[in-house]
């Protein structure tokens, strides 16, 4: 059964109360991409500074629930300073973690295919999949980051 401790782990509440990498970066050289969750009103703005295929800096602004805010904070900590390839891998892994098995209303994360240890603190978000409506809160920042990377490529 779903219960609140699974969702609101201490790491999550900590990142919610003290978000990492809040702020803006000058554009250019940084790029700026906005993400919306129209149904709940969550908004996020991601600033990326990419140099030599490396994400040298990332900043975030926006507002939303503890899940969307902690997920974006955890994300920023996880990808800052990484090569873009690694960033993409992290996104992929995280999205797999958030995959819901749609065979029933019961949902489980996908531990066989996701190496939870490799995720570090991000693994705290694992409990979100038991609350399917909150998955879009957790993935908002990541989808926005994906979109930003596409702009870098373009």
């Amino acid at each position: 059964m779903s219960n609140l401790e699974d969702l609101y782990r201490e790491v999550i509440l900590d990142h919610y109360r003290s978000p990492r990498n809040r702020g803006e970066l000058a554009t250019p050289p940084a790029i700026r991409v906005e993400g919306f969750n129209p149904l709940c009103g969550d908004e996020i703005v991601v600033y990326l500074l990419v140099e030599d295929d490396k994400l040298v800096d990332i900043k975030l602004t926006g507002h939303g629930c503890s899940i969307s805010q902690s997920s974006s904070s955890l994300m920023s900590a996880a990808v800052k300073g990484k090569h873009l390839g690694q960033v993409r891998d992290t996104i992929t892994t995280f999205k797999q973690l958030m995959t819901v098995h749609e065979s029933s209303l019961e949902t489980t994360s996908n531990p066989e295919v996701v190496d939870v240890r490799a995720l570090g603190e991000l693994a705290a978000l694992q409990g979100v999949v038991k609350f399917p409506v909150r998955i879009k809160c957790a993935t908002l920042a990541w989808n926005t980051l994906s979109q930003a990377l596409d702009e870098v490529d373009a």
Partner: protein
Amino acid sequence: MTSFDPRRVRADTPLFARVINDHPIAYLDSAASSVPPRAVIEAMSRHYERRHANVHRGVYQTANESTHDYEHAREAIARFVNAPAGANEIVFTKNATESFNLLAKSWGAANLKAGDVVLISEMEHHANIVPWFQLREALGIEVRFIPVGDDFRLDLSSIDELLAGVKLVSVTAMSNVLGTVTPLKELARVAHDHGALIAVDAAQSVGHSSTDVTDLDVDFFIFSAHKMLGPTGLGIFWTRQDLLAEMPPFLGGGGMIADVSTTGYVPAKGPARFEAGTPPIAEAAGLGAAVLYLEGLGMDNVHEHERRLTEDALTRLETEFDGRIQVIGPATTHERGGVISLDVKGVHAHDVAQVLDQYGVCVRPGHHCAKPLMKRFNLSATARASFGPYSLIADTDALLEALSDAVKLFG
């Protein structure tokens, strides 16, 4: 006055048998959609089981019965809102939102031109905003906003200036976020004095207090069946017969025509002109039953019941949380309905609602399709609790207990 007993309403409403996370359901989301009683659900089942057929174009018995139910619902609604010319003034749409699109794109497109002003308010639902923006794109009209004051009420101090150039005032009867009730009679009077017509978004009022469009002296009146104990898939549009007669068609198709050839078409007269295609027939049967049920309760009883619940909840929210929880809306039940938006300091509305769900308490977090209003008060979301005729003090008890826990969890 009939004796009104909310526990009987509850017993009549199957959903309340549900247990959520080991708690009896505390449904506090009637502003999003109300819960239909057994009589409404059975009216629809009976329709499909006994008489289902398409309307209007049949002569056989079940087709007659279907048509009868459908037109009967139109009469019931006309009576319920006291439409001066009866059922001929009632158009069935799919929801209040379609009704607003009908207003903007039929009446509006025919009667407004570049520079004309439609005056709405900062506390409108998107249903009463976006269609006007769309008309602005199409025709170059101006959309102007009546501001909302810090007292959470329409600021009518400059209403005469605001009305300059206005052809239509379109306002909510009751805010679905603040609970604020609009002084419609007064607004209708000043609008008419300035030569403007007035449309009312009654989605939040019709199922909670008695309605009299003749007495209000308004020109358009819009609401949804699913917010008055009726089914989804059915909206209502009322306007005066003379205005309806002049409105050009909106959606085109079968049922809304008098004639069609390969060279053109002649639209039908009356409400039919705006009801293209197979209408929501079973839904109308359900709405007819909902009107009967509400009439049985007595709308004044419903209103007084919800007023008392609201008064009690407002008092307790004020006294039991040391200012940690702010009510976004008027502090008393004076000109205010049973919709209570909460801002819990340091806890996002989504998280509030999530914690409450563990207690079986159903509240809605978000912008409630009223983003301009949220921006007005610098909020991105509230957690909204709202009452219906079946609500009990026990629901408020559950709400307050769960809120205490949410506050504790987030420290």
